[in-house]
């Protein structure tokens, strides 16, 4: 478990990763948090791989095949909640 992780820090780290790794006009304040980054065209197919690898390495977690779905990962907040769940941190309302 990552003791330093908080709901806000997980969310912000994901946002930061997206902004610094995928070309986009969005900023931290405009990046859609509740929409699928894939469907919005913000990341491409390899971006999915990069994003999953980032989540796994950054928080030392394993994401199962059955979890790589729109329901669990279709948006920054959903991804943050998935990370928090795996870290055993109660998900606050983000």
């Amino acid at each position, binding site marked *: 478990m990552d003791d330093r992780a908080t709901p806000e820090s997980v969310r912000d780290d994901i946002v930061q990763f997206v902004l*610094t*790794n*995928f*070309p*986009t*006009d969005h900023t931290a304040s405009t990046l859609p948090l509740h929409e*699928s980054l*894939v*469907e919005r*065209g*913000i990341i*491409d*197919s*390899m*971006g*999915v*791989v*990069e994003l*999953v*690898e980032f989540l796994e390495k950054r928080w030392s977690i394993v*994401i199962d*095949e059955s979890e*790589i*779905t*729109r329901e669990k*990962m*279709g948006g920054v907040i959903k991804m943050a909640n998935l990370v928090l769940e795996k870290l055993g941190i109660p998900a606050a309302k983000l």
Partner: protein
Amino acid sequence: METAGALLLRKRLTEMCGIAGLVHANGRASREELHRMLQAVRHRGPERLGGYVSHAVALGNARLSIVDLEGGIQPAVSHDPEIVLVFNGEIFNYWSLRESLIAKGHRFETRSEAETLLRLYAETGEEMFRRIDGQFAIAIWDGRNNSLILGRDRVGIRPLFWFQNHEVLAFASEVKALFQLPSIQRRLDYRALVQTFRFWTVAGDTSGFEGVRQVPPAHYAVFDSVTGSPRLRRYWEWPFPGDLEYLKLANDQEYFRLFAHEFRESVDRQRMADVPVASYLSGGIDSTVVAMCLADLVPGKLRTYSVTFADPEYDESSAQRIVADHFGFEHAAVHIGPTDVSDHFRDVVFHAETPLFRTAPTPLFLLSKRVHEDGIKVVTTGEGADEILLGYDLFREVAIRNFWGRQPQSRWRGSLFSRLYAYLPQYRNPRYLNLLLDFYRATLRHDGDPHYAMAVRWSNGKALDVFFSPDLRRRADSYNPVDDLERWLPPGYMAADDIARAQCIEMQTLLANYLLSSQGDRMSMAHAVEGRYPYLDHHFIEFAARLPRRLKLRGLKDKFILRNAFGARIPEQIRKRPKMAYQAPDLKGFFVNGKAPEYVEALLSPQRLADVGLFDEPQVAQLVRKGREFKLARVGMRDNMAFILVISTMLLDDLFVRGNGLSFKDQTATSRLELIEAGANGRSSNA
């Protein structure tokens, strides 16, 4: 059946060359300016420069002398009336044209194609282009009405650019020859950038440079004055579904037999040369069939050439070896090491003269060098099969989108994408498939979009506009490149279905303006090697267009008829081999061990980016950082495209706008310009 004597007569010069010329509005053309222009394209034909200079007009060509020098020298000149013609390429039916002209009373002084074309023009005028079978760029000065005519082959194999201002009208095989004229300003065309970011290539008559245009494939342009707009005429259309009566044969086997016969005929037409013809071999079925058919027609062992890669992601050497061993070809390969792409990319951009979205031309640049060193001057390739026989993923992708779109809730329908893109690890890995399908799910609504098939590619391209500088972004926001593309689409486009529309756009963009140019003519002619394209013989194109679609795309099986018509002779491993798109390392080819070459660091420095003013410095810096730090085995398509587009554009600026590529590298290799004067009855003589 032709006799050996007739075949010998039919053989003629292989006209590997570049052409250039100009007409001044006021004042005289000079030998010196023509010489400079020809020097700039002398890599296309490094042994002999021929020219004609008279008053305001100069035309010339740089050619590789092979045999029959006296007969083959260009320009072809007629004195009375004054008609001067230069051309680059091959006219496959020149002998029958020549015979028909003789029957009409023409007397020939040489066996050259140039003289045949000159007399054909004198006999038929602009109608001549419809009568020519071949791959060509032709320029004609007609002194009877002081007009210049520029014409180009049907699919865009040979290049032809032109420029005009209030002083001069000039043309050339390559833009660098135009830039030898001081009155031509050298500026990148922002429209070319926006188009290439979106479509992967320029569209229509656009070139990479402001004011420089290309004669589009299957067109000729008539300039009645130096400064007036040309009359642009299309003389041939890609046969379009809807305009066609499909062939109706009894069963698949009959189609296969006819297809095999027609294709062999095409290879036979395309192999004509007075020098040995070799074949490129990729390891895929397209080039395998070409090489196999060619080997049936030529004596002795066929020589074949391939590229192999140190990076297994791109390497197809085992398939190439299977084909070469199976057919007993004399095979050679050029090996592409980790730094070869970045080491040679500057030279590649110098020859391509347009923004590039991939580095894939680079290995072909090195391959033609090797072929040239082996003394081979003509090679056949498998280019064009994917366009005319529906081989690209794009065609199957739109078929799946349409199929899935009818039942969007079906997961099985969507999962067909994993079969289509089985060569991409992210699609092979079931972990990621669910999320990837979300991307396609968002593209299923058709809404009557006339470019539905292209929507995924174009939206990926549009996403890269974030790399534009604020200034370029403003211009890009008020310019719709689709409008420019639509100007060149045929009348039947709107009535066609999504697959036929995609086929049409692929032919007009990717085929003509990348595969045949940046990756084709420009890379092979960089070393005076001429490509031949049996799938793009226009008789074969017209035949293939009349094949019912189920013979090309059956379910998700691409090029169905090609695989079956020649299947029995092709090794099973090749026939059943999953498609592998020919590519080369892009972003990661520039950051071997995290370090980029010096020229890349210099061109992508914040200062240089700001000076050029086309790209957003923070976005480029982020991409460079990603290149340095990248750990994944494979890089995403957007990152690859963005990086190659940016670095190739910055190289274009350096080489052409700043002019660092315009001085001749090897002054000692300067060729003397031989001028031809007009004689009576079309007879040419050396000055």
